[in-house]
C-alpha cells in the first residue's frame, strides 16, 4: 500500500505543480536580490536573507526561512487533509478498504506519502536555492571556502553541510506536526478542504497567540512556537535549547494527533 501511495504521489501532476509554485518564491527573491543588491539589514526580514548577499551558499537556508512559515504548511495541510477525506469524497475509500487494505495500513501509507511529499519539496527547494544562490549571489566568498556563522566565526564546508542537514530535518519534523493535525481532521470530516483549512486555522491561531503577551502561559505549547529555531543551529556554538524543545513539542503533537486519528478511523463507519 505504501508503494501504491508513493506512486500516486509521484504520478500526480498536482504534486509537481505545488512543488514548482513553492519553489518559485525563493527563486524570485534570489533574482530580485541579485538584480538590486538590496538585502534587508542584519536582524530584519526573513532569516538569513541579510547574510546571503555575502554568501550564496547560505541561500538554501534563507529559502527555507521563506517557505516554512506559510507556503510549506499550506501544501502539507492540503495534502494531508486530502488523505482520508479525499478518498471518502471520491467514493474510493470503501473500495480501498474492501480490497482489503487494513485501516492502520492505509493511515501509515497516507502519512508516509505526506512525509515523502515534504522531503521532496524541501529537497527541491534546497537544491534549487543552492544552485541559484551560488550562481547569482555572493560568488566572491565561494573561492575562499569559509562561510560566516551568525556568531561571526567561520564554518568549513563540511560543517555547513552537516548543519544544513540538521536544519532540513528539523523543518521536516515541524511539517510532520502539521501533517498529523491535518490527517486527524481528515478522518473526522468528509471534506478534504475542511480538514486542510482546519489544520491551517490551528497554525494561524498559534501564530496570533504567539504575538499576544497575555497568552504567554500558553506559548511554550503552541505548535508554531519553535518553528524557526533551526536558525540556532547556525550559531557557534549551537544553541540547542529551543531546537530540543521544538523537537519534543513536535513529537508530542505528532504522537497525540496520529493516535487520535488512528482511534477515530478504526471505529468509524464508512458510509460515504
Amino acid at each position, binding site marked *: *500500500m505504501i*508503494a*501504491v501511495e508513493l*506512486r*500516486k504521489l509521484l504520478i*500526480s*501532476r498536482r504534486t509537481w505543480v505545488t512543488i514548482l509554485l513553492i519553489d518559485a518564491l525563493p527563486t524570485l527573491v534570489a533574482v530580485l536580490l541579485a538584480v538590486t543588491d538590496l538585502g534587508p539589514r542584519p536582524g530584519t526580514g526573513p532569516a538569513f536573507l541579510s547574510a546571503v548577499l555575502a554568501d550564496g551558499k547560505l541561500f538554501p537556508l534563507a529559502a527555507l526561512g521563506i517557505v516554512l512559515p506559510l507556503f510549506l504548511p499550506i501544501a502539507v495541510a492540503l495534502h494531508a487533509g486530502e488523505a482520508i477525506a479525499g478518498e471518502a469524497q*471520491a*467514493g*474510493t475509500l*470503501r*473500495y*480501498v*478498504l*474492501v*480490497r*482489503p*487494505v*487494513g485501516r492502520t*495500513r492505509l493511515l501509515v501509507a497516507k502519512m508516509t506519502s505526506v512525509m515523502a511529499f515534504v522531503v521532496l519539496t524541501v529537497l527541491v527547494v534546497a537544491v534549487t536555492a543552492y544552485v541559484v544562490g551560488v550562481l547569482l549571489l555572493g560568488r566572491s566568498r565561494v573561492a575562499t571556502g569559509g562561510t560566516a556563522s551568525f556568531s561571526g566565526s567561520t564554518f568549513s564546508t563540511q560543517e555547513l553541510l552537516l548543519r544544513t542537514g540538521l536544519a532540513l530535518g528539523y523543518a521536516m519534523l515541524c511539517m510532520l506536526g502539521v501533517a498529523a493535525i491535518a490527517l486527524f481532521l481528515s478522518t473526522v470530516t468528509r471534506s478534504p478542504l475542511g480538514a486542510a483549512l482546519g489544520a491551517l486555522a490551528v497554525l494561524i491561531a498559534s501564530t496570533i497567540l504567539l504575538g499576544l503577551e497575555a497568552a504567554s502561559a500558553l506559548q511554550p505549547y503552541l505548535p508554531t512556537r519553535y518553528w524557526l529555531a533551526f536558525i540556532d543551529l547556525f550559531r557557534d556554538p549551537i544553541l540547542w535549547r529551543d531546537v530540543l524543545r521544538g523537537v519534543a513539542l513536535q513529537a508530542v503533537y505528532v504522537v497525540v494527533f496520529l493516535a487520535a486519528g488512528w482511534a477515530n478511523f478504526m*471505529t468509524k*463507519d*464508512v*458510509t460515504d
Partner: protein
Amino acid sequence: MIRSSGLTKRFGRILAVDGLDLDVREGDVYGFLGANGSGKTTTVRMLLGLVLATSGTIEVLGRPMPSSARVVLPEVGALVEAPAAYAHLPGRANLALFDAMSNGGRARGDRASRAGRIDDALDRVGLGGVDSRPVRAYSLGMRQRLGLAHALLRRPRLLVLDEPTNGLDPQGIREIRCLLLELHAAGTTVFLSSHLLAEVEQLCTRVGVLDRGRMVVQDRLDVLRRPTGRVVVHTPDAAAAHALLDGRVERVDGHRLLVRFDDAAALNARLVGAGIRVESLVAERRALEEVVLAATRPGDDRIDRTDRIDRIDGR
C-alpha cells in the same frame, strides 16, 4: 456463504438494521430486496466491514467479519452503491492501482498475473477495447462496467453487488444479467441488492425482503412464486366455460376466466372435452411484486403530510 444473526445497526436514534438473520448459501443467486432507506446498503456495508455493527454477528465464507477481513475479503468482489475510481486515471490504470493495494502472501504471483486478469475482467464487462481516456470522461454506463470489472478482478467466490445495473441501458442490463448467470454457472455465489423486482425475479434463486431494517421474507423464489391454485383461462366461449365450471369460476372478464383448479392440464382436458375452444391456459403464480408489497410498507423516501403534523404535535 453469508450468515448473520441478530445483526443490528443504530445510527444515533435511527435504527437502520434491526435483528437481521441473513442466510445466503453457496451457489445461491440471492436477491436482497427492500425499499429505499430500508437498510440494504447499511447491511451490505456491514457484511464488508465498512460499517461496524451495533450488535449481532456476521459470518462470511464461514469466518467471522469484520475480524477476519484480511482472509475473507480477498475472495469477495464488491460493488457498493455507485462505482468509484480515481477520476484522473484511465480505467486500466485504476484497476492496476487497486490490484496493487491488495495484501496477502501471493503478492508476487498477483503482480505477474495482473495484466492478464485486468484484460480478462475488462473483456467480461464489455470494456476490452477501452482506450486511455481518464475515468472522468467515462459515461455512467462505462463507470458501472468498470466498477463490475473491479469486483471481478480477483475471480471472487462471492460477489456482493449493490444495484449493479444502475445507469445501464436495456442492452447493458441484459449483458450484465448474462454475465452474472455465467459467473453463477461457474460456481460464484452472488448476493444482489436491488429494488428492481424484475431484475431479481429473472436472476435470483433465493430472495430476502427487508422492511425498515427487518427481514420480513426470506425464502426460495420458486416457493414464494408457488401456484396459487387458480388457473387463468382465455376462451371465446366464456359463457359456456362458466356454465361448465360453475362454482369454480371466481371471475369472468370478457374472454378471461379465473378458475379455482389445482391441475391446469386436467382443466384443459375437461374444457376441450366439452368442446370449448381455449386460446390460452396458464396456472396462476404469485408475482414477486405481490409478495413484496404484501410484506412491506412504503419506503422512507415517502413522507406523508400526516406524519409531519404528528411530528409538529410532538406525538
